[in-house]
């Protein structure tokens, strides 16, 4: 895009003040990549046909640093993360909104890369971006780009997922190896120079929705273990469903690279974020069918049975590879790499 059309190499406060530069930014960059009819209309609200079923709404904000990391960027994260929140609620994702808070001085090229990544992710996922907003804050009052999204989806009437469905005897499945995203982003942020790490950032609805259709009521609960990792997600489940959960260390898939890097740094992959995985509680009798089904899909080809639900009051226990049992708690404070 020519400089005179876009106005600058960097985003300035003028790009956010509603004037000529704002319009140039929207038409020249945002609408260039996001070619959705409601957005192109540039009205104050998108008018959408009512879906059949219950409407699912989720909101999320993305502040990841660095903006670009192996396996993804803030743009792909914004799209896929929002879609996944809808998918694990049993919803087919339909629409997204995109709110941008840009820091004065952000490079135009960086912004274009992010928007283009958003466009590609949305297109691959089959969702429409129907509304958006752009603000610019003074240098030092933001952090390059913050993104806020709202995701809208529709849940078919026969889907009923939640902690209330989870009962002692149920089985716990994870869709693939854990810890990839959290470790990759940390390593990229701190420039550790570790090779072989890649975020698992991916949209999961194209696996989850057929999974729900095929397994039906045998699937009781779904969650994507993002912040806080698998351990935190299981602890949240145990607390809300008022059950105890037992998981087996040897059965939890963790990639060798992630295990190795985590060990060097003194981090625990069970507490590191995932952005392309989901955890499911299924009827025990449906486990084999569930695993067979999931393993057909590339995104869940390493799906594994990792544990079970028992009577209890909100505790999560890990059976270690040595055969000991220890409790998993919420993390207190940030995980920091160790000294020696």
């Amino acid at each position, binding site marked *: 895009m020519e400089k005179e059309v876009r106005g600058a190499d960097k985003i300035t406060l003028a790009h956010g003040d509603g004037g000529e530069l704002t319009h140039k930014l929207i038409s020249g960059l945002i609408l260039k990549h996001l070619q959705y009819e409601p957005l192109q209309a540039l009205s104050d609200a998108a008018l959408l046909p009512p879906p059949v079923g219950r409407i699912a709404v989720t909101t999320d904000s993305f502040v990841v640093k660095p903006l670009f990391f192996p396996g993804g960027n803030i743009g792909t994260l914004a799209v896929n993360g929002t879609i996944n929140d809808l998918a694990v609620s049993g919803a087919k994702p339909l629409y997204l909104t995109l709110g941008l808070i840009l820091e004065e001085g952000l490079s135009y090229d960086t912004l274009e890369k992010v928007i283009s990544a958003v466009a590609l992710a949305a297109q691959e996922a089959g969702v429409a971006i129907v509304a958006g907003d752009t603000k610019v804050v003074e240098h030092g009052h933001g952090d390059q780009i913050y993104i806020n999204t709202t995701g809208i989806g529709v849940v078919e009437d026969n889907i009923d997922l939640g902690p209330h469905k989870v009962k002692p005897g149920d089985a716990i499945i994870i869709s693939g190896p854990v810890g990839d995203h959290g470790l990759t982003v940390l390593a990229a942020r*701190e420039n*550790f120079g570790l090779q072989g790490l890649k975020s698992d950032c991916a949209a999961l609805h194209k696996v989850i929705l057929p999974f729900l259709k095929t397994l039906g009521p045998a699937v009781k609960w779904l969650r994507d273990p993002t912040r806080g990792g698998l351990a935190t997600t299981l602890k949240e489940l145990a607390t809300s469903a008022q059950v105890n959960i037992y998981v087996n260390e040897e059965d939890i898939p963790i990639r060798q690279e992630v295990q190795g890097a985590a*060990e060097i740094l*003194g981090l*625990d992959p069970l507490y590191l974020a995932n952005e392309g995985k989901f955890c499911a509680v299924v009827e025990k009798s449906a486990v084999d069918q569930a695993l067979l089904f999931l393993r057909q899909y590339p995104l869940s080809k390493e799906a594994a049975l990792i544990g079970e639900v028992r009577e209890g009051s909100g505790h999560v226990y890990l059976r*270690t*590879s*040595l*055969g*000991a*049992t*220890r*409790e998993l*708690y919420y993390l*207190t*404070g940030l*995980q*920091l*790499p*160790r*000294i*020696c």
Partner: protein
Amino acid sequence: MEVCGTHTVALGRSGLRELLEDCLDLRSGPGCPVCVTAAEDIDYMILLARQPDVFVATFGDMLKVPGSYGSLEQSKAEGARIHVCYSPREAVELAKSYPDKIVIFLGIGFETTVPLVALALKEAMAAGLKNFVVYSAHKLVPPALSLLATDPELGLDGFILPGHVSAILGRQAFAFLAEKHHLPAAIAGFEPLDILGALMELILLILNGEPQVLNSYPRVVTEEGNLKAQEILQEVFYPCPANWRGLGSIPDSGLKLKKRYQDFDAQKRYPLEVKPSPPPPGCRCGDILKGLTLPTECPLFARRCTPATPVGPCMVSSEGSCAAYFRYSRRI
């Protein structure tokens, strides 16, 4: 007794500590360099952070450690420039990037970490940096082991020796435990099977009354250790007395910068006076570091003292005994 924070964590995380509870009394010793840093050293570091035109570069674990007048984290919130490093060389880069600031690197660590600090100092000297100083609160492990080996109250039967420190010093640096103190010991790695294997060998030595120091981690540790690392350490530092939290002053257990590197000594640049103050009431960190008390026996443990609200350093550092017990071994 194990004397390495990584072992403390590994014993808890693998569940080994609990599995062996009925037959082995496993004590965690002073294995965490953050935890054994004396209160007055932490207070001095906080004073350093408050000096004008100063950047403090430190390992992350030091941020939350409570001194007598707050923590580095609190100083940061009050405006002190504190930069978390993953390697001492980052501090040198910081000094190069900010020539009008004095960058003070807080030197905490045992023999595993010190050679890296020494390398950073050599780099600073080669670059002719005038704005880089190190506060050396480094500690040496063998003198502390001597003290623990002869403590009548403790009555140890043997040591699990730290795998990483041993990688630097070599098995021969610990031979004195058997020769002088008639105490068996085994150097262990960090996988659960490494520790189990070392424990098995150690127990046999104890049962047979054979004071020997075994290298049960031969894939990493050699007899002489890492001679290059030892050389670099000795080029820059020399031993001096040091005050260990819980253990008191131990001769030749700390490190000072040699004369050639004196311009990089933070204490010479900032001869600040620290007022001594009593330890927080109820805190048993001192006894815990010596292995006399288990973390779970401290009245504050998991009540007033938690990783989110720590009273003493053992709960703050991710490899401190209390933090490790809180996370993995609360039922002991």
